[in-house]
């Protein structure tokens, strides 16, 4: 599965996230891939909203705290590995525990540790085309399937 979208504002990116949330069942792991300022946290706002876990304004960058939870019990874990440099540090975060809970796990900067994630996962690639336009690719990688 692979679909590509164009958005032209933050609002459209949030709306796309909301729509994509419909494809995500509890237990799904989603890597948000893109450079600084590509819109990773913005699309996370939409996904959190689409899953009914919190309003977009309540979703902020987890860079400092590493993991934000939304919903009670948490329906979404929003993880940010910007500050993590070594796989050894990653191992100690206890992320595997999150995979076993009935929640969607969103991960920013997770593509830097490709071997860490379940083979069956979603990836959202965000590319900045200009100040407001983003090309956003949504794909599912399934073990043994085409990449």
């Amino acid at each position: 599965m692979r679909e590509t979208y164009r958005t032209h504002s933050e609002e459209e990116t949030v709306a796309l996230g909301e729509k994509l949330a419909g494809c995500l069942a509890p237990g799904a792991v989603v890597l948000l891939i893109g450079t600084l300022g590509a819109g990773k946290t913005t699309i996370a706002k939409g996904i959190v909203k689409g899953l009914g876990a919190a309003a977009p304004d309540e979703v902020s960058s987890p860079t400092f705290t590493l993991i934000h939870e939304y919903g009670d019990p948490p329906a979404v874990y929003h993880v940010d590995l910007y500050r993590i440099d070594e796989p050894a540090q990653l191992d100690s975060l206890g992320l595997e525990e999150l995979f076993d809970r009935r929640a969607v796990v969103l991960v920013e900067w997770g593509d830097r540790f490709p071997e860490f994630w379940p083979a069956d996962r979603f990836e959202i690639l965000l590319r900045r085309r200009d100040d407001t336009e983003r090309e956003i690719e949504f794909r599912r990688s399934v073990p043994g399937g085409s990449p």
Partner: protein
Amino acid sequence: MRILGIETSCDETAAAVVEDGVRILSSVVASQLDTHGKYGGVVPELASREHLRAIVPVVREALQRAGSTYGDLAAVAATEGPGLVGSLLVGLTFAKGLCFARGLPLIAVNHLEGHIHAVMLEARQRGEEIRFPALALVVSGGHTHLYEIKEPGSYRLLGRTRDDAAGEAYDKVAKLLGFSYPGGPVIDQLARYGNPEAVRFTRARMKGNPLDFSFSGLKTAVLRWFEKRDMEAEVRARRELLRHNPRPSIEDWLAVTPRETLDLLASFQATVIDELLRRAAASAGQIGARSMIISGGVACNAGLREAARSAHLSVPVYFPTPGLSTDNAAMIAAAAFPKYRRGEFAGFDVKARANLALA
């Protein structure tokens, strides 16, 4: 009456003894900056491990310096959140154990309320009285929040960041440009050498609540500026400097930072300060504030302090001294006194809460 405060929400292990809510008998802070500096940020597993190593000697030293024993204490206060759960647990569990063993009451304190109380404690020390309603801006690496304090202990959230915290924007810009962690102090010092009007950054315009903050657009604008220029050589020179000298002096930094980059830093800092103060002033007006409190790690920023002084705000602005701006335990003990008087004690089942809200 003495309260022992314990703070371990992030990368500082801190303990303090405060008497009667006004006299700091001791305040010990063991920073993990050396451990985390090389990782460009706080690493949770390292943080918990370092807290575990430090908590016993730090508490012991706080008691010794205060000339106190466990028998002198009326209560033990610890931070319950927000913060890194693994870190919070070390301080909170230690406090529970101590209370259980000594039969002392346990007081759970919100870290953000602690930052506000740091300012209130110092005002009391000077014999000044902060007038209410007050507007509080708590601004650090993890927080950028505006609160109305109707009266001591009564908080209402007015605005907060929708993406990056102000201190986080400093850290990310510093990392991008090859400066050290944390980014605030080095950018603050270098900004003085640049022209704050050289780069015009667009101010964030918030749909919905106009008192919310956004620093993500500014961070992206710095990235665009960076990408349009060939800065690889100077970034490499700065990383090289850091490899040989983890604590460069301002002269060392100036030697590897061209004018244009100093102008960028000055413009970035001016924009952050303007965003913070503009919304703080607007909030203060909206609630009819009679004073303003600015606290948290970013309150150390000399540029912010100067701008607040020269902004001629209609209300007095209170900053904590630098030692009480960054994380410390005296503020946790100070925040515990009113709770002690109200009999607000925590059970031993109180949990560390990463996302604990103040209001």
